[in-house]
């Protein structure tokens, strides 16, 4: 090491290093422009000037090219140095006033304006591009030419260079951000685009694919990395990676895994918009894809969630969505199922950002068929989103503003054109091109479209035993359906692997818990932006600054997403570094995220219960969106309240119990039977209760399916399996009288013909089904020719049909004010019956009066087929419903045809009604018995629509089938298997964690008055007497196994003699007081 003196300090420097490097490693800041860590020093910009004593006299020298030597004396911050640096900065600024980098350097040196004549050069002659091309790429495509004031950088002879490989290194290193590759290379320049941002942003060749990637480490794109392209050059990233983690020699590895089942879920590919040239994608910059809009609207996207046009940053006034791009067409005769809803979501989100934005959605049928979807669609209609039923012919760019003209034909046949600022193509799902290769390797079959082949009655099964499928690989589907199938595929796999369950699992290890007794509170506060969800309303930095000042807070910060994996790592690090003993997260709701954060603090060695949350999203930013100041002030209050409670939190002991491993399944239809089989096959005992004397439910009335499947045989097989399964106990003609207890420990009473059976079980699956609407509309029940789709199916199943004219009316009792939901089954049931009728009697006339044909997924193909066979589909408006009358002997249906624009009168000999699926009348009773919620339509309400679609919020209770929402047979089977999969995650445990926040008696305060004993709903309290100092002392004792922590005792006690841990009176009072301390 070489010893030298910098600014009076003794410093040791590496031999062969420069004075600049020595200064920087000593932590002394020196401005540079032409210096780059990976390149040889050049001394061009002269910004790094320092004073070096030579023979006792200080001289101004460029530190980047001055080698260190023993005993050197350097001054970096003298008046003279500063004066010279400022002068250099002024000269640079005069030459290139347009450069942001130079303006910054000048500003840092205190130079605001240059006194010299201003030029407008776009090159500072720093030589970075020349050096990187020569030294790193080994190409030398750019170099200096000419001399003096003529000196410039460019390719040889000013001709575009054939040796330049357009790697972009010169551009990335240029302080002037000059587009050098375009000027230098004879090749076409194609920047690498970030796939995650749907091509809206660029990325380098070494990059982290997206913010929340797991693991969160960079990858190298070998196809564009200059190191691989030049056969060993560049390696610049090596100089910057201090961890030394870059390994260019990494090779693909082949792993051999010994497995008992395979689950395939490779997903889908988006339709390539560029193929739809009439819409101008790739041609007009303001035609973007739905995925690009998703990124535009995302807080972590390229514009941080601000709605703007990618090409010019203009905020659009008029935005149009074109639906079914790449779906529902000749070469893709299926519906992608998700685009209608995501377009509605995008329109609503965009209008949230820009309330004056006009959104128009061009669509064919609004396929809002899922649970809650129609209500969401209606919200968009009410919000002012315009829905136009048309498939646009083309899109053309107009004018200098690059706006777009959409031409379309409206329903009445009129040609129209409208101008928009931004056009979004709602692209469809396509099977991946790699599916063929994957299927071949796995030995599974694909269908003619390239999706995985499955069976209607076993939707997760592939053609090869032991290989299961879930997600969009088998058919386009949305998140809830995908999650349901994923749990179902897990259940199917576990049926094969039941014996080996748990044998290869090592339990998660936590570090020992740190004892914080006696420590003063040291609180860390993490305030979440939640993308833009919080940050766009609440001033998050202000909340952080406020929290920092509160007593006992030793650390406060903000995070874009506090729930992300990298933030968990940060929280753990901060807990260790700052010796935190309490953590507060201000973000969303503890109902969904408390478990995650508690686990994080536990991983950092803190007790889980030393954690508190402030709900500043669901209960603040989202409900005060138009009052940012009040919301910010409320957020501060909420944080202060959480901190006040956190200060008083105490570590609690973890508790657990061994659960019962049996299941109760309520309902013996396809859902209940499939769930029962799914669990019994995994080795669990199942009690199956059906109130009717026979199994089968609605499936008993299903006679045929469109692709030739045999529902009767399927049902017989299910019933046979249920009745013969050694682990299924069947209770036919039985009702559930009561359910007591909680996850892992339920006790229920089943009544069969007056006989009561008490059973114990660990979980409950609700599969109680749904009913069919009873109505008097359209003469139903008054004229025997008016029947339901179900009755019509039975009629057709006889195999003969003498009918000449059949009319079907859709949405009877669905999608109205009373039942604002779609019954989902009916469109496809109508199509199925219509096709059957056409098969039996091709000359029969069938008219389907509909509102939207919701033939989602592969059902579209049958819709197409029905139209080919001559089934006529006539749309009606809900405001002008069809009218049915008896005209003498005739049954007449009148309807306004929006295309012909005239009223049609159809005399028919059968009117078939698609009656709504309605919840069971006893839903509320059972919901009360189980203490689970129902939604406004009286279907059961799952814990989370997307993330937990078969769970109830109460642990240990699951749901499937029509009780959840209308769905078809195949979807019911999938959901039943999903529920079985979820239920097994509890049944398979030997130990289940128990609530730790339960009651505790303060013996000193308790005088044994016993007021608390009677109100306790769990009989968890008993009165005790014991001898203390010769006297009898009365006190109360908690049975920890029984207590659930409701706290009724705490509110009853007049003497603060009993409380619930983590909700103690002083903790709650501290929150109240904090709330009242006006912030």
């Amino acid at each position: 090491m070489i010893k030298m003196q910098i600014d009076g300090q003794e410093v040791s420097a590496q031999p062969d290093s420069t004075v600049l490097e020595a200064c920087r490693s000593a932590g002394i800041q020196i401005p540079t422009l032409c210096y780059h860590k990976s390149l040889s020093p050049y001394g061009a910009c002269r910004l790094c000037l320092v004073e070096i004593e030579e023979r006792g006299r200080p001289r101004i020298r460029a530190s980047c090219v001055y080698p260190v030597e023993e005993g050197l004396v350097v001054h970096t911050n003298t008046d003279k140095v500063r004066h010279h640096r400022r002068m250099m900065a002024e000269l640079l600024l005069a030459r290139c006033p347009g450069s942001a980098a130079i303006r910054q350097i000048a500003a840092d040196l205190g130079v605001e304006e240059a006194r010299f004549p201003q030029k407008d050069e776009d090159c500072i002659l720093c030589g970075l591009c020349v050096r990187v091309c020569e030294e790193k790429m080994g190409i030398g495509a750019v170099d200096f030419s000419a001399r003096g004031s003529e000196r410039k950088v460019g390719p040889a002879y000013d001709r575009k260079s054939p040796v330049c490989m357009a790697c972009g290194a010169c551009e990335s290193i240029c302080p002037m951000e000059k587009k050098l590759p375009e000027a230098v290379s004879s090749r076409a320049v194609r920047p690498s685009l970030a796939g995650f941002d749907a091509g809206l942003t660029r990325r380098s060749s070494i990059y982290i694919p997206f913010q929340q990637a797991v693991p969160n480490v960079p990858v190298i794109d070998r196809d564009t990395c200059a190191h691989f392209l030049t056969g060993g050059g560049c390696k610049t990233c090596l100089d910057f990676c201090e961890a030394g983690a870059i390994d260019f020699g990494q090779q693909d590895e082949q792993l051999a895994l010994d497995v008992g089942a395979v689950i395939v879920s490779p997903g889908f590919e988006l339709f390539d918009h560029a193929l739809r040239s009439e819409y101008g994608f790739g041609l007009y910059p303001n035609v973007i894809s739905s995925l690009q809009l998703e990124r535009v609207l995302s807080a972590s996207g390229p514009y941080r969630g601000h709605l703007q046009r990618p090409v010019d940053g203009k905020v659009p006034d008029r935005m149009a969505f074109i639906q079914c791009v790449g779906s529902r067409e000749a070469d893709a005769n299926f519906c992608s199922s998700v685009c209608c809803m995501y377009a509605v979501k995008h329109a609503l989100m965009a209008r949230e950002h820009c309330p004056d934005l006009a959104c128009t959605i061009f669509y064919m049928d609004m396929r809002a068929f899922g649970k809650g979807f129609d209500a969401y669609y209606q919200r968009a209609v009410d919000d002012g989103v315009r829905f136009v039923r048309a498939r646009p012919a083309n899109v053309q760019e107009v004018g200098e503003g690059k706006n777009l003209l959409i031409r379309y034909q409206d329903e009445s046949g009129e040609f129209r054109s409208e101008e928009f600022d931004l056009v979004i193509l709602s692209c469809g799902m396509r099977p991946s091109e790699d599916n063929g290769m994957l299927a071949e390797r796995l030995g599974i079959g694909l269908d003619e479209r390239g999706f995985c082949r499955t069976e209607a009655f076993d939707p997760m099964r592939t053609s090869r035993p032991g290989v299961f499928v879930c997600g969009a690989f088998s058919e386009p589907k949305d998140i809830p359906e995908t999650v349901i199938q994923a749990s179902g595929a897990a259940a199917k796999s576990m049926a094969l692997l039941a014996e080996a369950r748990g044998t290869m699992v090592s339990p998660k290890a936590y570090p020992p818990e740190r004892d914080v007794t006696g420590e003063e509170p040291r609180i860390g506060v993490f305030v979440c932006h939640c993308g833009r969800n919080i940050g766009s309303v609440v001033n998050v930095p202000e909340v952080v600054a406020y929290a920092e000042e509160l007593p006992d807070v030793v650390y406060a910060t903000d995070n874009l997403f506090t729930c992300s994996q990298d933030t968990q790592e940060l929280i753990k690090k901060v807990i260790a570094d700052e010796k935190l003993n309490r953590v507060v997260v201000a973000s969303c709701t503890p109902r969904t995220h408390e478990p995650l954060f508690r686990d994080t603090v536990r991983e950092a060695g803190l007790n889980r219960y030393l954690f508190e949350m402030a709900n500043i999203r669901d209960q603040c930013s989202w409900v005060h969106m138009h009052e940012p100041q009040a919301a910010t002030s409320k957020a501060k209050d909420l944080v202060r309240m959480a901190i006040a409670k956190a200060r008083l939190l105490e570590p609690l002991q973890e508790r657990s119990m061994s659960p019962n491993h049996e299941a109760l399944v309520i309902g013996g239809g396809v859902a209940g039977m499939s769930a029962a089989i799914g669990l019994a096959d995994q080795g669990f005992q199942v009690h199956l209760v059906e109130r009717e004397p026979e199994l089968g439910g609605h499936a008993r009335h299903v006679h045929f399916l469109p692709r030739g499947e045999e529902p009767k045989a399927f049902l017989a097989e299910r019933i046979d399996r249920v009745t013969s399964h050694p682990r299924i106990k069947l209770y036919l003609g039985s009702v559930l009288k009561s359910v007591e207890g909680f996850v892992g420990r339920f006790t229920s009473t089943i009544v069969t013909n007056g006989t009561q059976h008490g059973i114990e079980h660990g979980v409950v699956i609700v599969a109680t089904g749904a009913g069919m609407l009873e109505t008097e509309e359209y003469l139903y029940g008054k004229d025997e020719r008016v029947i339901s789709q179900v009755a019509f199916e039975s009629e057709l199943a006889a195999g003969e049909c003498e009918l000449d004219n059949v009319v079907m009316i859709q949405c009877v009792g669905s999608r109205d004010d009373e039942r604002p939901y779609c019954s989902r089954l009916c469109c496809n049931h109508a199509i199925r019956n219509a096709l059957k009728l056409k098969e039996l009697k091709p000359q029969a006339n069938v008219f389907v009066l509909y509102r939207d044909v919701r033939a989602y997924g592969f059902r579209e193909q049958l819709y197409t087929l029905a139209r080919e066979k001559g089934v006529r589909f006539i749309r009606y408006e809900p405001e002008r419903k069809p009218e049915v009358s008896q005209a003498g002997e005739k049954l007449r249906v009148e309807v306004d045809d929006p295309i012909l624009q005239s009223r049609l009168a159809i005399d028919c000999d059968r009117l078939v009604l698609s009656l709504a699926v309605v919840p069971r009348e006893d839903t509320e009773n059972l919901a009360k018995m189980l203490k689970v919620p129902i939604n406004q339509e009286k279907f059961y309400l799952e814990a989370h629509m997307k993330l937990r679609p078969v769970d109830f919020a109460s642990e240990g209770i699951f749901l499937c089938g029509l009780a959840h929402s209308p769905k078809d047979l195949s979807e019911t089977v999938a959901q039943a298997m999903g529920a079985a999969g979820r239920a097994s995650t509890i049944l398979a445990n030997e130990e289940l964690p128990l609530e730790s926040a339960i009651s505790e008696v303060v013996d000193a305060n308790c005088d044994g008055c016993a007021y608390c004993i009677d109100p306790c709903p769990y009989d968890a309290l008993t009165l005790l007497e014991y001898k203390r100092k010769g006297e009898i002392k009365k006190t109360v004792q908690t049975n920890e196994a029984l207590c659930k922590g409701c706290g009724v005792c705490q509110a009853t006690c007049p003497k603060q003699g009993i409380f619930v841990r983590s909700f103690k009176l002083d903790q709650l009072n501290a929150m109240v007081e904090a709330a009242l301390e006006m912030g």
Partner: protein
Amino acid sequence: MSEEEFEPTIIAFCCNWCSYAGADLAGTSRIQYPPNVRNIRVMCSGMVHPNMVIEALTKGADGVIICGCHPGDCHYIEGNLRAEKRAEAIDLMLEDFGLEPERFRLEWVSASEGPRFAEVMKDVVESIRELGPSPYR
């Protein structure tokens, strides 16, 4: 403080299973209500001690509301019914402390009643605004 400027501070004790979830649902549905309410999550409406309500009011809260599950829906069987009984006692105590009965309320809000949560809160804030600041403020 003039009537127009008065912004009441309301403390809302919300049970974890129904009302707190209903408050979250108001958020996910983006239903707007006045920002005067400070929610405190409790496991059950039956956990809220009457003294805590009175203390909040005497320490300067302009109103206190307890929100629980609808009768029959209580996660802990009948904690909400206990809360209902106690509400009667609280009403009596308000009188003793010279507080208007409107300053305390008990309401049932289920997990699916986001709109109702917002409605209730709007109503509470409006009625307390009309009533004016707490005499203990």
